[in-house]
């Protein structure tokens, strides 16, 4: 019997992430990478890929024609049926600041969270249709 230990086979993350982005988009890829991070907690590269996707999501939000001056509003769906949205404490706090007048820059200043995470949470709220950012 061979005494050579089986090498740990690491998935080729770059290819998997690229394919997933093309087929399913950033949010699905983000969810899959969180699963991967939990399955391979010591693989630091996964954290890098996760940051690439989070960066992509926030950049998409900031690519709004008005950039940081864009003003988010609560969606009609959220106003009529807000208990459908399973918000965590951070999301709940940020959504409580949205009054239809404050722009992204002011939200970033007022938020107790760091600037990047504030923008990421807002992007998540947009994706879940709890808020909208009119053009």
């Amino acid at each position, binding site marked *: 019997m061979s005494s050579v230990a089986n090498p740990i086979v690491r998935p080729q*993350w770059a290819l998997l992430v690229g394919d997933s982005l093309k087929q399913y988009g950033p949010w699905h890829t983000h969810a899959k990478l969180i699963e991967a991070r939990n399955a391979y907690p010591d693989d630091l*590269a996964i*954290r*890098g*890929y996760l940051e690439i996707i989070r960066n992509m999501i*926030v*950049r998409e939000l900031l690519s709004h024609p008005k950039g940081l001056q864009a003003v988010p509003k609560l969606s009609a769906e959220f106003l009529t049926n807000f208990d459908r949205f399973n918000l965590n404490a951070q999301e709940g706090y940020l959504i409580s600041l949205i009054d239809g007048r404050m722009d992204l820059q002011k939200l970033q200043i007022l938020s107790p969270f760091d600037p990047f995470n504030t923008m990421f949470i807002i992007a998540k709220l947009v994706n879940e249709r709890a808020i909208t950012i009119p053009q």
Partner: protein
Amino acid sequence: MTTYAIPLLDRLPTPIAVVSESGAIEYRNKVFEEIFGSDAKSWLKDGARAVAGERGWLQGFFLAGDDGHTNDVEIEGRVYRIDKIMSIEGYDTPAVALSFDDVTRQREAEQAKSDFTSMIVHDLRGPLSGIQGTLEFVLSQEGTKLDSLYSDLLTEAQRESERMMNLINELLDFSKIESGNFVVEPEPVRVAGVLKRAVRSLQSVAARDEIFLLSAHGRDIPQIIGSVEKLTQAIINLISNSLKFTPKKGLISVAAQIVRTDNMPETIVITVTDSGMGIKAEDVEQIWSKYKQTKNKSLRGGGGTGLGLYIVKQIVEAHGGEVTVASVEGVGTSMVLKLPVKRAA
């Protein structure tokens, strides 16, 4: 030792000796005897002793396997590169065959080169700082109406002077690394503070290039022991690198998180992530090597020394950490730094 081996070893121009674990000489060739005489015993015995908890240099050769072990050791005012040839069996105690190569001149030449680079770099930095200060002053005068052409030209001059300052700083760091003067002086480090400082120092450059630069760090990031100055410099190098390859309206994020897993000691993971063009798979391995650059063209003009990421790697490794990179072509790149948490007392 076989009879024919002794005359053969005696004809070699390199000093060779078989030394036991205690530093006793079991065999030495003629050149060894000519160079070191009988005094060799004393410094070999010193090398076999641990001093203040630090292992003696000779002990390292007994712990290493037979795939070679090298150590530069100062002996009687000269520097010798000592290589382990092989372990020798047949003596009462373990013994190793060592070769002694005099590298004193080589080391002196390296030191002279490094001193010269440091001197030139220092001399270049002075006048360049003056040019930068003047440009900044002229461009910041709100009351002065500059013709847009002159304003653009001055901004371009400012950008190029910043680039030149970065190149000079990289050369200075590189010369310190090469001369062995790159030492981490330990102090308590607030990692979140390091990220903020690095981001703040490049915020105006990012804004000028219409790039978003945001930081992300949890509140639970502990203080570590390291060098504030060097870690800030590593993050600045990474952000500067990202700025070169991130297009307008792009995003650079700088994040830190604490990672606790069953198989890994408590670790801080810092990521500098950009929405640039990504790195080709074949280039990923070489980006941390000196003078290596990817085939990607900088979007801000001009090249670099190819030392920025090499310096980052040296800084992180001096802190007992590791570097790695994640990249998706056409989407972005994330530089990942892993730093062990050695908590400040």
